[in-house]
């Protein structure tokens, strides 16, 4: 059967073949990585759609071809080398080598899932039928349906039952932009060691990226403590109408983002990249928002032109990106072009985080938990202690790009904006 | 009651006041219609025209007489047998032949075909292939003209078979009740498709015999005498423009060919055909023209010019490319597209 150049995003219509991991004539297991494909947005691994022999490589490394082009041909066991290419339906039968389950299996159309070669049961062993949504989720999370408790009629496993299992195990959906680089589930006959958790592709990419960033940029951490009283007042009074109008809650994040955008325009060196002995300033603020997607990894979708947006527009944009991230609907364009990153661990109540810079940017700001704390209010008539919502903003910056005083001034500006802006007017 | 229309027409006598210029114009229009339909027939035979086609060979005087009497902004509504009625409004021959051949020279670039020739810019508001409907639609254009006060007339051509469908009766009653500026022209060619009209109609004159039911004067004219047709048209239009309401005209005529491409018309007695061929509107008009002193050479010159026209039009139509495949999906909606969902 044919291995095709996949579509890596709605705005992408071609891809470049990277290194082949297999040679012509090699035998391959289903889901084993065959080659890498690159676009200007992402790089991904293409797994073998079925087990067999890699009989033909049609496109060599370095060649750029359009989506849908046949990259290689895999000849299944027992197939004649000169046999006409079989269609997808025929190849839907699971290859013997990767047949892990007793129950009937089907193969989803890869386009429907964004993953290749996933097979999944159509029913439980005792014959309870599984809905398409359940089958899809089970496959995506590599779950064993026999161990899911069905709460529907006659023990039917409902979508909610699967979601519960996923939530309990902390296995969130893999991030969409990297969905196509998710390593396929290892064949069942390669039993996993009880003591090791093999990195999946996202984990590997994240690891590489982090090491590279630390190796490239001398990181310096600076933090300021911010009094969020003004923000909190506005947030509280608007909370309900906001939720009613927009269907989601107003968090601290858009306030911080709005202030950061203003400050970045005044401190353009922080909205930049390091070039060849030069600092490249960016004309717009493309704000990346790190979104944690559970143990599988991290994505940082980008709000383009954030400096031109109102607070409400920023909030909408974050909501949109977060929703699409969770629904696996991010496009390649959503993940590119960031110029500054916000990393938000606030909801976990962290005190301070030292974030790692999202290359090729030069700074990243972590927003941590906001807690009520007693603080000293200085006043000519005598200092008093007040209870205020306070949180720490911590910025890691690339010391190649600028120095501590510049970063500190920037942070001070962000703090002043957050504390002194009339947020009622901004919202 | 409109005695002026009926009296002239029934008498069958052309108005001697017509100038020879008008007469030559009428002859030329008929001649153009004749060669156009003949060429359409030839192109069928060469398989360059697909589908069906309904020719008006032998019935040219009706289209020519009414067409010549119409104002530029009047409306024509005609049937699937509508090549001539569309042509006489000023449409180019190549636009008609192109449409018959289904290519981009055509009026609708192949989207309508022989039975739906339309040229809104010429007031040819469409050829309708579901019998009877367009009488009601012609009323709408007349109503619009009445409402806008433009004194435009809506002219609706149809065959004898139409008089037995409900829409004919609804349309006539409606037009009279609303006093609409519409002229209904029944071309009675004696056959509804393959069946003699007399076999299936309760009255002798399929249109005129029903006129009285709607308070209209029965008007029967010789549809092969173009002078009579022309004058009847003028009178009916004058009446309509002056707010006098609709006219129903029954023009007796005969088609030289079958109902459509598929019909050899074997059901018609030979003697009948021979009788009507003697009354072919073209020779019937050419001879009196000569008698009136129009030089033969002048007529021949017209005929030669028209013969060149049709050859040129044929070449133009033949050489036009087929419609781009995208046209299959355009103009369902006013936005130019065909989307029914987002």
């Amino acid at each position, binding site marked *: 059967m044919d291995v095709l150049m996949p579509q890596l995003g709605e705005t992408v219509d071609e891809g470049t073949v990277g290194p082949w991991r297999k040679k012509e004539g090699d035998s391959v297991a289903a889901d084993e990585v065959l080659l890498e494909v690159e676009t200007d947005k992402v790089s991904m691994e293409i797994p073998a759609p079925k087990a067999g022999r890699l009989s033909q490589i049609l496109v060599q490394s370095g060649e750029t071809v359009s989506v849908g082009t046949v990259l290689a041909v895999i000849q299944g066991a027992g197939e004649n080398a000169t046999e006409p290419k079989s269609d997808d339906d025929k190849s839907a039968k699971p290859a013997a080598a990767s047949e892990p389950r007793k129950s009937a299996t089907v193969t989803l159309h890869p386009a429907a899932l964004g993953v290749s070669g996933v097979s999944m049961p159509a029913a439980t062993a005792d014959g309870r039928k599984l809905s398409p*949504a359940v089958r899809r989720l089970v496959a995506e999370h590599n779950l064993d349906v026999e161990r899911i408790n069905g709460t529907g009629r006659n023990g039917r496993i409902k979508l909610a039952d699967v979601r519960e299992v996923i939530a309990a195990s902390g296995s969130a959906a893999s991030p969409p932009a990297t969905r196509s680089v998710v390593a396929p589930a290892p064949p069942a006959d390669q039993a996993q060691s009880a003591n090791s958790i093999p990195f999946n592709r996202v984990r590997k990419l994240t690891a590489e990226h982090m090491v590279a960033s630390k190796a490239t940029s001398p990181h310096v951490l600076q933090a300021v403590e911010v009094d969020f009283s003004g923000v909190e007042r506005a947030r509280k009074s608007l909370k309900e109408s906001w939720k009613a109008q927009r269907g989601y809650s107003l968090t601290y994040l858009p306030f911080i983002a709005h202030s950061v955008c203003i400050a970045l325009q005044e401190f353009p060196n922080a909205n930049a990249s390091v070039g060849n002995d030069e600092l490249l300033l960016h004309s717009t603020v493309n704000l990346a928002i790190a979104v944690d997607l559970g143990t599988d990894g991290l994505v940082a979708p980008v709000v383009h032109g954030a400096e031109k947006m109102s607070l409400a527009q920023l909030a909408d944009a974050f909501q949109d990106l977060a929703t699409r991230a969770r629904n696996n609907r991010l496009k390649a364009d959503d993940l590119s072009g960031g110029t500054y990153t916000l990393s938000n661990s606030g909801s976990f109540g962290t005190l301070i985080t030292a974030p790692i810079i999202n290359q090729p940017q030069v700074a990243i700001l972590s927003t941590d938990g906001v807690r009520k704390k007693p603080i000293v209010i200085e006043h000519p008539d005598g200092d008093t202690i007040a209870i205020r919502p306070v949180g720490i903003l911590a910025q890691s910056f690339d010391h190649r790009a600028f120095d501590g005083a510049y970063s500190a001034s920037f942070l001070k500006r962000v703090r002043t904006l957050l504390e002194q802006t009339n947020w009622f007017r901004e919202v | 009651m409109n005695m002026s229309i009926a009296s002239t027409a029934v008498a069958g006598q052309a108005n001697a006041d017509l100038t020879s210029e008008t007469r030559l114009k009428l002859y030329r229009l008929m001649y153009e219609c004749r060669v156009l339909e003949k060429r359409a027939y030839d192109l069928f035979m060469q398989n360059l025209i697909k589908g069906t086609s309904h020719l008006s060979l032998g019935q040219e005087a009706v289209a020519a007489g009414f067409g010549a009497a119409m104002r530029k902004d009047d409306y024509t509504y005609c049937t699937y047998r509508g090549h001539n009625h569309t042509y006489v409004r000023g449409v180019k021959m190549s636009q008609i032949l192109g449409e018959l051949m289904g290519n981009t020279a055509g009026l609708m670039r192949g989207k309508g075909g022989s039975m739906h020739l339309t040229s809104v810019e010429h007031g040819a508001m469409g050829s309708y292939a579901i019998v009877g409907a367009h009488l009601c*639609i*012609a009323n709408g254009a007349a109503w*619009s*003209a009445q409402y*806008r006060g433009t004194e435009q007339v809506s002219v609706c051509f149809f065959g004898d078979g139409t008089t037995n469908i409900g829409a004919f009766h609804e349309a006539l009653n409606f037009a009279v009740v609303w006093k609409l500026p519409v002229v209904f022209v029944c071309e009675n060619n004696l056959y509804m498709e393959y069946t003699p009209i007399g076999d299936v109609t309760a009255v002798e004159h399929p249109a005129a015999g029903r006129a009285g039911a709607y308070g209209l004067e029965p008007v029967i004219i010789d549809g092969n005498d173009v002078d009579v047709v022309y004058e009847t048209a003028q009178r009916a239009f004058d009446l309509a423009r002056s707010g006098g309401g609709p006219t129903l005209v029954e023009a007796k005529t005969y088609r030289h060919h079958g109902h459509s491409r598929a019909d050899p018309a074997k059901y018609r007695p030979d003697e009948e055909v021979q009788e009507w061929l003697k009354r072919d509107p073209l020779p019937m008009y050419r001879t009196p023209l000569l008698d009136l002193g129009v030089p033969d050479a002048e007529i021949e010159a017209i005929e030669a010019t028209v013969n060149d026209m049709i050859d040129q039009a044929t070449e133009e139509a033949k050489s036009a490319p087929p419609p781009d495949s995208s046209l299959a999906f355009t103009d369902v909606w006013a936005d130019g597209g065909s989307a029914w969902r987002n």
Partner: protein
Amino acid sequence: MAELTYREAVAAGIAQEMRRDDSVVLIGEDIADAGGVFKTTAGLLDEFGPSRVRDTPISEQAILGATMGAAMTGLRPVAEIMFSDFFAVCWDFVANEIAKARYMTDGQVSMPLVIKSGNGGGARLGAQHSQAVENWAMAIPGVKVVAPATPADVKGLMAAAIRDPDPVLFFESKSLYSAKGDVPDSEHLVDLGKASVLRSGTDVTICALAMTVPRTLKAAEILENEHGISATVIDLRSLVPLDTQTILTETKKTGRLVTVEENPRLCGWGAEISSIVAEELFWSLDGPVTRVTTPHVPLASADNLEDLQLPSPEKIVSAVRDLVD
């Protein structure tokens, strides 16, 4: 904002457009002096006069033919076909003439017209005066199909339909004519082809149209209060153009879809929506798409029989519970 009945909102929508555009005219049986048999055109003759509001004979073909001819020569006519069942006597004009003119003429002809009609059951009028036939219309390429559920939508959609450059079949739900609701006094337009999400839930998405909208909302309340099932309710408002994006988005959220239509079972609009969702959302469905329809029988006249036939809140509740369990 004023409280109007659904029937008053029809006249309000037409009047709004007649005031701003002289080319808008209205014809139909008993629509002028009598104000319409359903009183949906009351007051229009007085305000706009007999040349713009004109009674016709009982000649549905003549009515639609005149409407078409007027639309293609510069007017924006609105025609009333008293009962939508009567479309059967003039369907040539809808299906063969009006719908196809623009396409066949390669865009030469415009057809800015509206055909309004009393549609659907519930009035004990028997099988020939009770049909919901919006599904007939959506089967024909070239006509838009609108069926509002609230007085505000009646006014806004009627106005939008009149302004639309394409032919619109406007189905008024007879059983809702007396329903009341707030309607904006000022100029009001509702875009054609935009569904309205009336209620957001987590367990099931229900699509409704016209008279099934209030019944579905009632069912959603029962589901929530008595069965702990949380339903999203979509009022489609328009079948052509069809707001599939809203249907798909809302169905994806819950993984389940129920359509509630007044059409008899075979080829009702719910069938088309089921097919779209099955094709495009298969892997997100947690159960079969389920249809609540009128059964495939003519409607009876007796109260208890007709009630048994039409979609009811109880039937909707039961269908949803079957699906969600």
